């Protein structure tokens, strides 16, 4: 195992700052070794002066996009979470509205495609939320639609208990 490579992967993948303890635990290496490599990596990234940086704060390390590009990154993030919904996003949101609480596998069974990214995006926009495995539309979104309960959605009773949707959900995951 290449410790430097492992630490770099962990820095890259983590969505929160990690302590030397964390790195030591996951890489199964001694703290002083880990710290040495971390310092080395920090220096490397500083020298590279590229689009990725490593910041250190109270003995915790985190990888971030370079502040030089914050404008572009802000634009990118804003674009991801505003504006019109794509068709897959719209379909997923609708299905959650009419069939929620609903799990990711159930959604995928109905839509026939993987929904990971779409779900993440809808959560980021505050349109849906999850409890455990189940996804629901948020109160904010209900209010936005001008209703207090999903039951007030047009044709709710008929659509939420639609037979065809029921059938596709009860299909055994086909061994194909």
């Amino acid at each position, binding site marked *: 195992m290449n410790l430097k490579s492992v630490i770099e992967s962990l820095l890259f993948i983590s*969505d929160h700052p990690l302590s030397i303890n964390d790195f030591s635990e996951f890489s199964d290496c001694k703290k002083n070794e880990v710290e040495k490599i971390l310092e080395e990596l920090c220096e490397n990234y500083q020298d590279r002066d590229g689009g990725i940086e490593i910041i250190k704060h109270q003995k915790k390390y985190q990888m971030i996009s370079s502040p030089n590009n914050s404008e572009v990154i802000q634009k990118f993030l804003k674009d991801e979470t*505003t504006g019109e919904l794509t068709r897959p996003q719209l*379909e997923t949101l609708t299905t959650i509205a009419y069939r929620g609480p609903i799990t990711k596998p159930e959604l995928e069974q109905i839509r026939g495609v993987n929904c990971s990214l779409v779900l993440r995006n809808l959560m980021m926009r505050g349109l849906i939320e999850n409890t455990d495995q189940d996804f629901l539309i948020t109160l904010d979104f209900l209010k936005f639609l001008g209703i207090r309960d999903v039951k007030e959605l*047009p044709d709710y009773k008929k659509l939420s208990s*639609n037979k065809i949707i029921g059938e596709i959900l009860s299909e055994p995951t086909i061994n194909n």
Partner: protein
Amino acid sequence: MYKIRTESFEGPLHLLLQLIEQEKLDINEVSLAQVADQYLAYIKQIEEKNPEEMADFLIIATKLILIKSKSLLPNLDLGLEEDEALLEEQLKMYREFVLASENIQNIIEQKNFTFSRNKYIVNDAVFSPPVRLTKERLSEIFYEIISSVKPILKLPEKAIKRAISIKEKIDFIQKLIKRRSVLIFNKVINDTKNKTEKVVSFLALLELMKNRLVSASQNKIFDNITLKKL
């Protein structure tokens, strides 16, 4: 004859490949003709156990029968000849992908999974609804989703229907021959609507010949085939 459990193969080409490999044959016309009967025997099993897969198996049966028929009726022209040379190539190609898929299986088993980041999520959710979305639009979309799901449920049903129509054709030809003492086979062929039907007609003919219910004769090359009840 070797026994292959129906669960142990996936699709007609896989079955054919297994038959050829069991006999330790190379993939060529001679060996295809050699395993044709075994293949056709399995088709009957499939008809009983997996009727929804029947249509796929019949398509390959077509090509096998054409190869096989050369020895039985050298001058039969079903208007399908361009296919027969291709079966050999098709099977060779299929084997290439089977071998390649074994390589891929090996790669997957190394579990070198890699991951991308999914950082900017949930905790910093800011409510940002799509401006023009209304609840009426939501219901419209849900109706559309329902109608797009419908055909998926019907998939197996459709395949079975197709296989049943093939079975009916076989019965039809058998009845036709039983009723008359002489039948011009080419007429049966000409009445068919597509290749699959032609094959099925020919399958029925072979079946009848094998069971010694009819004899087939042909006066000269490219002439009509006359079937006689025995």
